[in-house]
Each structure stands twice: as structure tokens, then as C-alpha cells.
């Protein structure tokens, strides 16, 4: 279904749309999908992509994209209704890379790249991973060294990427490589942005087990892997601007309040079934729990206000500043939600439920939803590290405010 461009703020229309959405979700969202354990992705990525295709078939996978690339053309209110209802129904989140590589492709990509990639990306047919970090280039991203040397119509890649989430499932990687000589004055020049087919000979993916006992992360090795020159986005040696454009989208994604509200709903459900310390009631009525939860809701509201104001102000030269503020606050709220969840578990924070999370056929120890809450507490520590650590965000924020005060 393809909704043409429409601008509507009519409350009745929005209510009707909400009803239509609920009926659609009731019908097409299976119980398995609603209850599938998740971080920012479903652990079962195949199930996630199945849901993506259902949503995409309806035309609703990328509502905010330009209409010519499959977006809906809806007003912000209507997009918001969709986001709210997806959270309410506990629908699987779509891959966060969708909102990173998508905007890069339709903003900077060649016609061929758009034709080749945007359709499958939007329809949930391809899964992407992000090749940014390297062993010597974490917070200091511009120190990256993965070498791409021209040879005929190809770049030949040698080197390594690290902390690559879902590289073991991905069809494609968007990737920062070094194409320029070391003689350049700025390390940031000499970096190019490439699209890499993960089936390319010479690419090896090795798993890294993370703090939750599960496999999300990888290291990726490149040994004479040949990538066509045509897979470069933007000019050679000028990929840094694209990398930053994408990072801004990534940081905005961390501050996605609907995702955070979904996390909180899972904690709420757990709290309603978790006895308090003396067994006289439920954690959902525990005084300390209730206060902490209200504070999180207030912080979420403030985050949404900041995001809304950022959108209204547009590009006033402070886009990086506000993206960093949103990332900083969003990641802190995510961790506060994790801690709130942990407080519901009590002694049941102890069992290692990673086998259950990998295979729902294995019964979980403790309350339903507990393993997922625990997973998110543990892996949630990554939120202040990835996408530029909180310390890097504070550096960026200070640089900008110091500039505007002098």
C-alpha cells in the first residue's frame, strides 16, 4: 500500500489511523514476535526480518524517509502514532542500521547505489552491519587504519574491524577505510566510505561473546578483499563527512524515546509479577520503585522535548551539539531503566539465562521477562560506550559551547 503525501493533523483522522493500526497489529503480529527477547535487535534476527517484511509490505517500514524512496510523507504526529502503537504492541524493533545507512544512501549515494540497495534495505531483505571501530580506533575513530588500495576497478582491503554487531548475520557492511596517504595534514582526510558485500572472498568473521554471555559482537578481518570502486559513497578521501552524518543519525537513534519506552514497559510487566522484599506486595507498588520510575518518565519527557526542539530549530549550526546531548541523555536513561529492572529481580538476578535466551525451548529460571531485563541491564552498559562514548560526547559538547561563548 502506498499512501500518497498527506499532511494531516486532524485528531479524528489520527484516531481512525490508530484503530486501523491496532487491527493490523492484532492480526499480523504473532505472540512469538511480541514476546521475542531483544536488545536493540531481536536476538532472533530472522524473526526480526520477517516482521520487517510484513511491515514493509504494508508500506510502513521507513515512514520518515522521503516519499520517492518509500517513505510515507506523513506528518510527524501520524508517524508518532505509528511508533507509539508499535511499542504498545511490543512489535520487534527494526535493525538500527536501517536508519543509519538508509539516510546516507538517499543523501549521498549514486543512482546505481540507490537502485541496488534502498529497495532491499527498506523491504527487510538485507541486513547491514557497521564497520567503524578498529583495535586502535575506538573513541578515536579517525585513527582507523583498514587499508583500501586501488587496483584496477577495485579497492583491495587489508586490515581489521572490531566490535562489529551482527556481522555474522549481515549481508552488507558499510565501512570506513583509509584510502589516502599518511602524508595528509588531517587524519580525517584520507578516509573513504565503502559498501562491502559480506560474501566477498578474503573476509573472515570471528565471534566475540559479550558481557551477557551471548553473541552479538564480532571482529572482522580483511585479507586482500576486493571491493569495486563503484561501491564507494561520496568522493575518495572525503568519507569523514559521511561518517559524521551517519553518527549523528546513530546518536539520534540512541535517544529514540519510543525504544526506551518499550524497555520500560518490559520492566513494568516484570515489576507487576515480582514480589517485594518482604512479600507483602509487588515491586510495581514499592515506594522506591515508583519514585525511580516517575523520575525516569520525567527524564523521558525531557528527552522528547529536547528532540522536538532540536527538530524545530533545524540545522542552526548546533546539530552536532544537540545530537551529542541527546545521545548522552538517552544512554543514561536506558541505563536507569536497566537498573530499575534489576531491582525487580532480587535473587533472580543470579541465574545465567543465556541458554534460554538463545533457545526459548529451554525454560527460564525465575519470572517471565526476567532474563530479558537482565540481558538489557548487562548489555545496556554498552549504551554509554558505543556510538561515541559519553566522554567523547562531552568533548564534542564542550568544544561547541566554548566556541559559541568566545
Amino acid at each position, binding site marked *: 500500500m502506498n499512501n500518497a503525501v498527506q499532511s494531516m493533523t486532524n485528531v479524528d483522522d489520527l484516531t481512525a489511523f490508530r484503530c486501523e493500526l491496532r487491527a493490523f497489529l492484532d492480526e499480523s503480529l504473532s505472540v512469538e514476535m511480541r514476546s521475542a527477547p531483544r536488545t536493540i535487535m531481536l536476538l532472533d534476527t530472522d524473526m526480526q526480518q520477517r516482521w520487517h517484511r510484513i511491515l514493509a509490505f504494508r508500506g510502513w517500514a521507513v515512514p520518515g524517509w522521503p516519499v520517492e524512496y518509500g517513505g510515507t510523507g506523513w506528518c510527524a504526529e501520524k508517524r508518532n502514532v505509528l511508533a507509539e502503537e508499535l511499542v504498545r504492541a511490543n512489535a520487534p524493533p527494526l535493525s538500527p542500521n536501517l536508519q543509519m545507512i538508509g539516510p546516507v544512501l538517499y543523501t549521498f549515494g549514486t543512482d546505481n547505489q540507490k537502485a541496488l540497495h534502498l529497495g532491499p534495505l527498506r523491504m527487510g531483505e538485507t541486513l547491514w552491519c557497521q564497520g567503524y571501530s578498529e583495535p586502535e580506533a575506538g573513541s578515536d575513530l579517525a585513527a582507523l587504519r583498514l587499508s583500501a588500495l586501488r587496483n584496477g576497478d577495485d579497492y583491495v582491503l587489508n586490515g581489521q574491524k572490531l566490535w562489529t554487531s551482527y556481522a555474522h548475520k549481515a549481508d552488507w557492511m558499510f565501512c570506513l577505510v583509509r584510502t589516502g596517504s599518511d602524508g595528509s595534514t588531517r587524519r580525517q582526510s584520507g578516509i573513504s566510505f565503502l559498501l562491502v558485500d559480506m560474501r566477498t572472498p578474503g573476509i573472515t568473521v570471528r565471534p566475540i561473546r559479550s558481557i551477557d554471555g551471548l553473541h552479538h559482537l564480532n571482529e572482522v578481518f580483511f585479507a586482500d578483499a576486493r571491493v569495486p570502486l563503484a561501491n564507494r559513497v561520496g568522493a575518495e578521501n572525503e568519507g569523514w563527512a559521511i561518517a559524521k552524518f551517519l553518527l549523528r543519525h546513530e546518536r539520534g537513534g540512541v535517544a529514540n524515546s519510543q525504544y526506551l519506552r518499550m524497555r520500560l514497559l518490559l520492566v513494568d510487566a516484570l515489576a507487576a509479577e515480582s514480589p517485594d522484599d518482604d512479600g507483602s506486595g509487588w515491586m510495581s507498588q514499592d515506594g522506591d520503585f515508583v519514585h525511580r520510575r516517575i523520575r525516569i518518565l520525567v527524564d523521558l519527557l525531557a528527552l*522528547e522535548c529536547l528532540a522536538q526542539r532540536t527538530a524545530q530549530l533545524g540545522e542552526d549550526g548546533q546539530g552536532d551539539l544537540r545530537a551529542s546531548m541527546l545521545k548522552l541523555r538517552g544512554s543514561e536513561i536506558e541505563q536507569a531503566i536497566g537498573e530499575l529492572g534489576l531491582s525487580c529481580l532480587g535473587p533472580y538476578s543470579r541465574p545465567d539465562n543465556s541458554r534460554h535466551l538463545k533457545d526459548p525451548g529451554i525454560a527460564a529460571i525465575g519470572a517471565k521477562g526476567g532474563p530479558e531485563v537482565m540481558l538489557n541491564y548487562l548489555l545496556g552498559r554498552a549504551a554509554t560506550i558505543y556510538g561515541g562514548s559519553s566522554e567523547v560526547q562531552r568533548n564534542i559538547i564542550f568544544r561547541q559551547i566554548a566556541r559559541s561563548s568566545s
Partner: protein
Amino acid sequence: MKFCFTEDQRLLQEGLADFLADRYDHAARNAIVFSDSGWSPDIWRRLADLGVLGLTFDAADGGLGGGGVEQLLVMESVGAALLVEPYFQTCVVGGALLRRSASPRAESLRKGIVAGDVRLAVAWQEPQARFAPMAPSTIAKKTQGGFMIEGVKAVVACASMATHILVTTRMENTSDGLAIFAVDPDASGIERRDYATIDGSRASEIRFSAVKVDHDAVLISSLNADSAIAAMLGEAIAALCGESVGIMKRALMDTLRHTHHRRQFGAALADFQSLQHRMADMATATATAEAMAFHAAGMIASPTGRDQAMSAAKLFVGEALRFVTQNAVQLHGAMGITDELPIGHLFRRATVIESEFGTTAYHLRRLTEAASDLTIT
């Protein structure tokens, strides 16, 4: 919510900022604070001439018809300049009540404010409760020809500067509910103890002993009084959030400048990363509080969710204000705890705002009791 201003409003905002930058620096403000009256009739006259006093009153009263966002912008300037003249008490707190009264007295007071002739104090707090605006123990008894007011009001801001005092009371007959009166500060039976406040302003403890007023002195009564007081609380909180943002922005700017110029260990303070990160957190708190203040400003006339939005805003902005001003003092070092720099005065005003119209703890409790979820729409 749109952030487009009319030409009039834009000129007014710029005019106010220019005027305060020119006429209300630290020394000028100190001279006013330490004067006998504690406020400047000259500044007040200029605020009237600029149109600031009439900003949120209707054209019928001679005003500009501005709403929450315009109020927010003016309060930001009020906060940054640490204005001690009774703008907030007169135009925001008193104005919220007067705009909800159909009485001829209220109309003449509104026109008087716009013209620069009327200044208000609103006597709603009482010594026996820290925050219970809907349950005054001050009582109004019917008499021949009018009413008689009995009771004590606490920490009435700017009462010594006021031409009129608005008093909240309960009626002697319980079923008559609450009422709001306009009272002459010099009326017989009023005993006032005036004192200085830590934010450079003045306040008073006021005892009303058999104070006689005529029928016309009733501005609002019964259920209308309840809703007017509730609206007053909402508008006051939204405005205080705006003032807080002005204070935070100035505290941050002063701190950035201080750490840029002050050198220790052979380097500018601003070269040290722990201080840079502190200032980054202050900037994040300020920007987020500003966004929350705009949200609150947009909610003051909302039929649903207003009280919750105000509680959320007061809670969030109040904590941000404390964080930013405490750290501004810290990063100024010993200079931060003197009386000589604006920073100490910003901190003192921030401390007063924390307890005005409900503390953080009060609003947290109110949100807990409401027990419904907060959303932006």
C-alpha cells in the same frame, strides 16, 4: 507549538534584552537592592513603556495578548538580569488571577498594570502549611456592606512594593468555597512585617485582623476561585521555568568565561578535561531544561494534562537549576562564594526558585499520586 513571533513580540523581546543589558548590570542592580524601597520606579516605568507589563494582557486592557511562549522569553530575560522589580508577582501570579475575573475592579487593575501604575503582591501562602494553596485558613466573613478578612499570610513576595494585595481566603460558610480579594496594603487592620530575602528582593509576613473590604473587592469566588488558583499555579510554574533557564544560561556563560581567563598550574582552567566535562553536563542540563520549559509554556492553556506537565517541568527544571548553579559556584572557586560577582546572586535566586510553587519533592509526590504516564502530546 510554533516558535514564530510577531514583529511586535520580537521587538519587545529584543527591546527588553537591550534595555536590561544597558540599565541593569550588577552595579545598577546592587544600587536598587540596597535602596530603601528595594525596587526602582524608574525601571518599572520603562518596563511599562516597553510594553513588557502589558505583554500577556488582552488588547482590551491595553496589552499585547501574548501567551505562554512570550511569557517564557520575558522571564528568561528577567532571570538572566536577576530583576528584583515585582514583574513575576504582578504580571504572572497576580495577572493569572485578574485575567480570570469578570469584576470591574479586576479590569481596572489589569489596565493599571499595563499603564505601569499598579503593582501586585499575591498573599496565598500561610504559616501553617508549606504548600496548600487550595486550603487557606484565612477567612472572609460576610458583614453589612462587604466582608471582613481574618488570618495570617506568610512570605508574601514583594508586598512592600505593591499597590494592591490579592488575598486568597475561604468563606465563613464552607459551602461558599474560596474567594480572592483585592485589598489596599494600608487598610486598617493590616499588620505587615517586611524583610529582605536572600535573592535581593523583599517579602512580608502579613496579619489581617478584622480587615474590612467592600463587595467590589471580591475578584473571584466559589468554584471559579479554585480553577483560578490552579491556573495561577500552572502559569507561575511555567514562568519560573523560563526564569530558571535565563539563570542557567547566564551561569553557564559566566562559568565558561571565568574558566577561559582564570589560569592555574600554568593553564587556563578550561583546558582541564574534568572541568570541560562538568561544563558539558551543565550545558546539557540547560538545553534540556529549556526544551522542558517550552513544553510547559505550551501546556499552560491545555485542558488536559496541565498539572502533570507543570509538576514534571518544575521537578526537572528545578534539579537542573540546582545542578547548574551549584557547579557554576564550584567552577568559580573562591570567587563563587563572594557577594561581588553575579554568580553568587544567581545561585541565591536559584535557591529561592526551588521552594517557590512546590519543591522537587512536592512535585514528585504529586506525580506519584496522579499515577498516569507522561507524554509529550
